[in-house]
C-alpha cells in the first residue's frame, strides 16, 4: 500500500488532498457522499468576525470549463462556526483549516486570536482578497507590503498554529507576493485564489453577476495556477499548497511535481459531490503513471530543460 501521508508547516495530513474554501461548505454538506475522515484536510468557507450576508444575486455563472463566483463571503461569522459547525467536524482525524476574511489588519489579528485558541482548528488560511479602501481600493493581496503586514499580525496572534497565506493571481509578480508572505512569517502559502473575470448576458445587456465582476475558477485556470505555483516554488523556501482547476489525481500530481506539498480541490467538488474522495482513491494509480510510489520522491521532481 502506498503511503500518502504528507507533513509540512507543522501539519500532518493523511493525504495531500484538501478541499478548498468556499467549495465544500463546512464539510458537513458532503458527509453523505464520503467519509470526511478520509480527507487530508478541509478548508472551511471564509469566516469573518461578524456574520455577512454576502453579495446580491445572481452570484455564480458557468463559463467554458470554469465558473465565476461573487458570493461575497456570506458566512455566519466566526462565533457561529465555532459553536455550530466545528464540534460536528472530525477534527481529530482531518485537519480543519479556518479561512479568514477581513478588511483591516487589526480585524485579521482579532480573527486569528479567536480561531487559534480552538483545539479543533489545525491551521489558519489568510484570504487577502478584500479591497483595501484606505490604500486606494486595490486588494491587500495585490500589494506585497500589505501581505507582509497582515501575515506578521496574524502570525503574532496565531499561538503557534501554522499560518497559510492564500495568494491572488491577479498580480504582475506572484513570486514577490509569496516572498512577502515568507518575510512576514508565513508557514506556508496556498495559491491560486480566483482570477478576476466577468460575464455578460447579451439578451438583458447586463453583467451576469450582480456584482459585475467575480472570481474565475475551475479547469480553465489550471494552466495559470501551474505557472504561478512553479514561479512561487522557485522563489520561496516555505511549503506551497497548489490550488486551481484540479479535478483528477493526475492534476494533483502535476502540482506536486512542481514542488507543492499538498493541493486544494475547489470547483471539482461541483462536478460531483464525491469528487475529492475519488481523487484520493485515484492517487496511487496516478502515481504509478508517474512511476513512483512516494510523494516525497515526486515532489519537485519536475525536469526542466
Amino acid at each position: 500500500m502506498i503511503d500518502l501521508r504528507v507533513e509540512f508547516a507543522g501539519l500532518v495530513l493523511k493525504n495531500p488532498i484538501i478541499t478548498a474554501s468556499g467549495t465544500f461548505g463546512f464539510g458537513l454538506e458532503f458527509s453523505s457522499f464520503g467519509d470526511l475522515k478520509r480527507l487530508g484536510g478541509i478548508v472551511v468557507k471564509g469566516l469573518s468576525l461578524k456574520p455577512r450576508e454576502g453579495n446580491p444575486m445572481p452570484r455564480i455563472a458557468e463559463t467554458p470549463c470554469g465558473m465565476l463566483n461573487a458570493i461575497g463571503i456570506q458566512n455566519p461569522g466566526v462565533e457561529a462556526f465555532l459553536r455550530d459547525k466545528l464540534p460536528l467536524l472530525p477534527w481529530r482525524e482531518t485537519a480543519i483549516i479556518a479561512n479568514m476574511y477581513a478588511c483591516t489588519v487589526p480585524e485579521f489579528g482579532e480573527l486569528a486570536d479567536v480561531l487559534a485558541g480552538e483545539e479543533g482548528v489545525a491551521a489558519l488560511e489568510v484570504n487577502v482578497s478584500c479591497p483595501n479602501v484606505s490604500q486606494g481600493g486595490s486588494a491587500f493581496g495585490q500589494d506585497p507590503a500589505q501581505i507582509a503586514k497582515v501575515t506578521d499580525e496574524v502570525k503574532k496572534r496565531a499561538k503557534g498554529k501554522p499560518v497559510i497565506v492564500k495568494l491572488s493571481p491577479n498580480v504582475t509578480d506572484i513570486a514577490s507576493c509569496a516572498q512577502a508572505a515568507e518575510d512576514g512569517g508565513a508557514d506556508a502559502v496556498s495559491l491560486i485564489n480566483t482570477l478576476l473575470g466577468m460575464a455578460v448576458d447579451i439578451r438583458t445587456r447586463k453583467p451576469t453577476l450582480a456584482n459585475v465582476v467575480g472570481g474565475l475558477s475551475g479547469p480553465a485556470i489550471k494552466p495559470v495556477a501551474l505557472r504561478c505555483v512553479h514561479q512561487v516554488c522557485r522563489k520561496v523556501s516555505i511549503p506551497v499548497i497548489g490550488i486551481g482547476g484540479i479535478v483528477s489525481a493526475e492534476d494533483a500530481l502535476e502540482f506536486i511535481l512542481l514542488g507543492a506539498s499538498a493541493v486544494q480541490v475547489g470547483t471539482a467538488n461541483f462536478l460531483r459531490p464525491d469528487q475529492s474522495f475519488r481523487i484520493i482513491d485515484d492517487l496511487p494509480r496516478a502515481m504509478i503513471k508517474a512511476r513512483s510510489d512516494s510523494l516525497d520522491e515526486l515532489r519537485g521532481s519536475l525536469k526542466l530543460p
Partner: protein
Amino acid sequence: MVERNCREVKVREVRFLGTWDEPSDFVELTVENPGWESYKPGQFAMLRAKHWGLELPWGRPFSISRVDAESVTFFIQVVGRGTTRLARLRPEDVVIIWGPLGNGFSAPTKTPTLLLAGGMGIAPFRGYIENHPSPEFLHLLFAHRPSLDHYPFLAMSEKVRAEAIQERSSDDLPDIIARIEASMDEHADGLVLACGPTPFLRTVQAHALKKSIRAEISLEKTMACGVGACLGCVCKDGQGKHVQVCARGPVFAAADVQI
C-alpha cells in the same frame, strides 16, 4: 432526512415528448434507481452525463418526477447547453446523479390540496399524486403553453381531479390568473402547492399572502453544488437573510421567502 447519495447509473429510456416553437424539445428521461429508499415529492436531483467532460462543470437540477424500485424519471425541457446534452443521451449511457436533494412539499392527509403547476413545474406533482395517502383530496390546475402531449398531464389526470388551461398568447394571462386565484380561494382552508416560472409563483405568493392561504412554492435558481455548500443559489427569507434554495428549499412557505 431522506438518505442521499451520488451514483453512476445507466440511462434506461429517453422518451421524446415533443418540440415547441422556441424550438425546445421536451423529453422524459428514465434512469436506473441509484439505490434511493424513499424520497419526498418536491425534492430534486442533480444530473450530469458521465461523458460530458469539463466544459460544463456543473450538474443540472431537475425535480424528481417519479420513482419506483427500478428507476427514477425526470421531465426535461431543453433550454440550453446541459439540457441539450441530456436530451441526446441514449440507453446504456452513464449519468452521474446525486440526490434526493432539498426538502419537498408537505403532504398532509385528508387536506384539500391544490396543485398549481406552470409548464415544466408539473414534474414534481406526478410523484406527489402517486405517493399521496389521500389523492381524492387533490386538485391539479395546470397552466401550459405547448400542447398537453408535451407533459405527463394525461397520466396524472386519471388519478386526481385535474384541469389544464393553455396560454396561447399573453392576452390569455388575465384569465389564467383569475382562474388560479379562484381555485386558491376554493382551497383557502386547505393547502396550495405551486411549482412553475417565477412570475407564476409571484402571482400565487401575492394572492396567498393577501388571503392568508397556506401555500408552498418551489423556487428555481441556477445551482452549482445542489447541497448547500457554494451559496450560489440563495434567496432571501422572510427576515431578508440569504438562504440556500437547494438546501433550505426548493420548497418554501409562501410567507417565508422573497421572490
